[in-house]
Every structure is written in C-alpha cells, then in structure tokens.
C-alpha cells in the first residue's frame, strides 16, 4: 500500500467549536426542558414521595415507610401482573415485527409510487382513529357473535364461539394493530437508506433474491427492526386503554393496576407499581440500545 492511499484514511483534526453556539443550543432546548421538568420529573419525584406513605383502612398516612414496597414485592398477585405485562408486551413486539418486516420490505421493493402511497396510508390508518373507537371496534369484531367467530363457526373449525374478547389474545390483537405503523416505518426508513448499488453488486456476484435478502438486506436493516421493536415493546408495556377495553378487567397489567390503586386512593401502591413500570421500561430501552449497537457494528 502506498503512502498516498494511506493518508486518505487519516482522521482530520477536530475544529474547536465556539462556546457561543452551545448557549444557543440550550436556548432551543428550553421549552422541552421546562415541559419535561414540570410534566415528567416533578411528578416522578412526587410519586417517589407517595411511595413511602402508608395506606391503612382506606386512609393515607404521611410517613417514611417501606410498607408499600414490601407488600408489592411479596404479594404473588403483583408478580403475576408483572409477568403478564411482560408476556403481553413481548408477544406484541414479536408479532408486530414479524408482520411489519415483510410489509416494510414490500413497501420498499414496490417501484410504483402511487401504490406505495396507498399502502402507506393503509398502514398508517390505525393511528388516525381514536384508541377508544378502535378498541370498541375490535370488541365488536372479536365478540362471541363477531365476524371472527362467525367465520370460525361457519368454516366448522369450532363448534361453539371461541372466547377471544376479554382475554390476553384480544389485547394482543388490538395492540399489534395500533403499533403496526410504529414498527413498519423505522424498518422502512432503514431499507430506504440501503445503497441500491449493494443490491446490484450482490446480483452481479451471482446472488439470487434470497441470498441478497439474507446476507445483505436483513443485516443492513436490523437497526430498523430493533428500533421498531423497542417502540412496540415500551408502548405495549404502558398501554392502558386497549388493555382495559379489550381485556375487560380480566387481563391484569401494570397500567390497569396503577389505575385501580389510584382510584382506591391507595397511592403508595400505585406509586410503587408505576416506578416498577418505569424501571422496566428503562431497562428494556437499555437492552434494545445495546442490541442496536451490537448489530450496527
């Protein structure tokens, strides 16, 4: 290798930035900082404080006690809620990714812009409808007399209506439907960033479509898959409306438990459940970021 070629690879020295630019940046961040301080950090601190209160015979007692924590972590009921929450979120994530990736791939490979536009619109449609309306829609579809059961009965797959509504399955179906666009678009955008010459190079070197997909497209778009999965997982973990309307009180997840405890003025328990939910979300984000770094390397 020659000297001329090697010097090309040398990193350029960093140009020192002027300090004034940093103040400007803080100014731009101002509104967001104030909003998150007021609407996120302060309430969190208040929650933290409440978690040390005691709740006895329907009354709140101001205190510094770990009662709520001990209750929460020793009661198998809460462990059950935790497991169910994680299980639903994980299932929703896996199904969303499995449905979204082929969809995104198809959207990307379509070279008809008009068709692409319509498909994108259909994919986006779930978030154009309010979550409450959408959930009631699913209630109708999934009920004992709903379309799904009529088809299953009509085809003779089941002899009596399958119980779908007010089960974890209904919640999962509802959530997958909402999260589809959130999963498709990170994947789609990672695909559009793929250099078209890589595809030509792969074909030119003798690859068929599967080899191209498996060896080039999939590895190059994994960051998009992880981003989509992360969004699905965290949103699913915190979903309340879908879980309560399609779960009908029979599907117990963290947000519903927080809501129930809050309604009973059992603020210490609500706070602890909420903090656990927050920690779960943070841990999952960390895991996903680590994964993202792993595949991007």
């Amino acid at each position: 290798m020659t000297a001329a070629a090697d010097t090309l690879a040398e990193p350029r020295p960093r140009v020192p930035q002027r300090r004034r630019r940093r103040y400007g940046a803080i100014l731009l961040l101002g509104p967001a900082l104030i909003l998150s301080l007021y609407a996120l950090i302060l309430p969190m601190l208040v929650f933290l404080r409440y978690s040390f209160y005691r709740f006895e015979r329907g009354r709140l007692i101001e205190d510094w006690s770990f009662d709520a924590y001990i209750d929460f972590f020793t009661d198998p009921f809460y462990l059950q809620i935790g497991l169910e929450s994680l299980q639903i979120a994980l299932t929703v994530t896996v199904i969303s990714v499995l449905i979204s990736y082929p969809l995104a791939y198809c959207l990307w490979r379509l070279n008809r812009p008009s068709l692409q536009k319509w498909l994108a619109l259909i994919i986006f449609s779930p978030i154009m409808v309010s979550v409450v309306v959408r959930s009631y829609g699913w209630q109708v579809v999934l009920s004992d007399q709903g379309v799904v059961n009529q088809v299953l009965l009509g085809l003779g797959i089941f002899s009596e209506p399958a119980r779908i509504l007010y089960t974890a399955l209904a919640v999962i179906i509802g959530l997958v439907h909402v999260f589809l666009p959130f999963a498709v678009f990170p994947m789609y955008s990672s695909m559009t960033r793929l250099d078209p010459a890589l595809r030509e190079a792969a074909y030119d070197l003798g690859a068929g479509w599967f080899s191209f997909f498996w060896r080039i497209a999939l590895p190059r778009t994994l960051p998009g898959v992880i981003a989509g999965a992360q969004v699905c997982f965290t949103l699913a973990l915190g979903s309340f409306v879908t879980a309560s309307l399609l779960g009908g009180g029979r599907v117990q997840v963290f947000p519903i438990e927080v809501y129930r405890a809050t309604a009973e003025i059992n603020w210490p328990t609500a706070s602890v459940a909420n903090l656990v939910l927050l920690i779960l979300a943070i841990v999952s984000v960390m895991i996903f970021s680590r994964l993202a770094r792993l595949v991007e390397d």
Partner: protein
Amino acid sequence: MSDVELINVTKRYGESVAVRDISFTVPAGSFFSLLGPSGCGKSTTLRMIAGLEEVDEGTLLVGGKDMTNVPANRRPTNMVFQRWALFPHMTLYENVAFGLQMEGMKGAEIKKRVTEALAMVGLEGRMSDKPGRLSGGQMQRVALVRALVKRPQVLLLDEPLGALDLKLRLQLQRELKTIQREVGITFVYVTHDQGEALVMSDQIAVMHDGGIEQLGPPREIYDRPRSPFVADFIGGSNFIPVDVLERSDSGLTVGHGPLAFRAEALNEPDGPSGIACVRYERIKLGEFARGLPSQWTAKVRDVAFVGAVVQYTLAPENGGPELIAQVPYDSVHPIYAAGDTVDFGWEDAAAGFLNGRAEARAPAP
C-alpha cells in the same frame, strides 16, 4: 474471437433514448473503453452488458452466447461499481468470498482464492477489517478483486477511479492495466476522462448522445478524429472554419482568409466548406516553425504556464483566427511573453479537415 458483441442495441427510458442502435465488438483479452461525457449512454451500455439494465432492442452476446435475456446473476460478467458498493457489514474477506459462495464453491477453495486475490493488491493483511476502515484507493482495490476473484469472462468497470484524487488515480490506472495484462481477462471500462481512456485502452469507443461517434485504438482516435465532437472531446484542438480551395489525390488545400494550408481529410470531404483542426501541440513556434510548409507570423496575446507545457494564445498578424499553441516547458524551447511577435506554423500532416458545421466548436483554452 470476441468476448462481447452488441448488435443494434437500443435502450429507452420512457420517451428518451439512452442508447440508440449501437453495434460493436470487444476483442477477447483486450482493454476496451467506452468514453464520453455524462449522459452519453456509456454507463447504460455497460449496465446492459452486466444485465443490470434490460436491452429494449437488439442482441447482446457475451463469449459468443446470447445473453440478451439472461439475468445479471447468471452472466459470466462481473462489475466494479462507481462507488465500489462494498458490503459495509462484511469484512474484506467476506466481501471477496461472497461471489464464490454464491457459486457454491467449497470453503477450502474459497479461502485459497480469496487470500490469493487480496494478496494481488497487497491487502492480505487487512482481511478481517471492514470496508469503512479503508482509504478510497484500498476500497477500489477490494472492489476490483471482489469481481476478479470470480474469474469472469469479461470484467466491467464503471468509472471506478472517478471518486479518487488525481495522484492516486494515475497510480491505479497503471495498476489496473498491469492487472489486466496479468489476468488476461477482457476489461470493458467506462470513463468520461479522455486521459484515462488513452492511457489504458487497446480500443476506445467514443460515445455521444446515445451513439458511437468513433471506435478505434487510442492513437487513431487522437490523430484522426472523424467528427468535430471527437476532435474536441479528446485532446485540445484549434478549430478553424475553412473553405476547400483545391482537391487532389494527396489531400486538400483549405483556407481561412489569408491562411491557406494543406489538410488531410478525416471524413468524407464532399462539402465546399468545413473545419480544419490542428492540435495545440502541433503548432511550432520560432525557429521550430522555420522551413515548415505552412508558416505565418503572430503576436502572442496571452501566455499560460501549465507546468509541463506552456500555452500561448496567438493572434496571426495577417488577421486569421486566434490559435492556441502548446510547447514543452524545457530548456530547448524559448519562452515568449505576451506582446512578442513570433513565427508559427505546422506540418502538412498536422491539419485535418472535417466536413461539418463550421460553427461546431469554439477552441477551448
């Protein structure tokens, strides 16, 4: 024996015609260049040979077999892409091995071939690096061996040196030519850089507006351009609008105002007028002009020092068109200053006559 043959090939994009009815053959084992300005159809032609673009009309043969409708992954051709298109998530080894794995070759054989190939360009020590850690020149070399390792019948190169700086480009030109001679594979090379094409090619096809203007070895293209476009695109030429004064078996006598000189007809000299082209470096100055059949006097209007050569803009004293002369910068040729009066002239063989519109090109400095 030819490795690539195009017969009346046409390519359209909607209404516009990218390549119109071209036919040519590439001799086996030769270095063949498609040269032309951007938009002339040279890359499209190359991509049709690769199978990355469909042929709309005509027939395409590679190695004597009809490849017109054979997909890219089943053609005995491999391509070096403009920006190399190395797989960024794979190591150099994996990049070069990819094409062999696609052939279903066994692991041990792949290892041997890949190692050999990377050693050929001095990168065997970087096998487990990813392309992102390489310099432009190194990436170019990897792209070259990734295609060559498949031992294609024809190697296609789409301006592979375009993204590199000048020094490195010159060095890689020599390397490419050497490698081509060693492996003996037919190279079809696309470039807009006439210098590059002249240095490396056995044959050059000059393309313009979707068609082939002229096809021949570099010196023939340079010395005997058959159209004003080719004369202008390759090298530097003075274009003098002239009338044909006299025709004879040995050539023509042409004139522009007071300048009258003999010229060789480069295309069919049937019209009464056309343009004469004289290469910058064919115009001799001062004592070197003495005794030449065509000789006049001019005032030096402008001097440009280029490095290896000095360019003078001359205004002939008897009122001819302004001409550019280029003389070597050495201890033999004297240096003139603007305002000097100098004799100039050229040999009979230096002037060519092209039948064509006289206003075709203005001389570009």
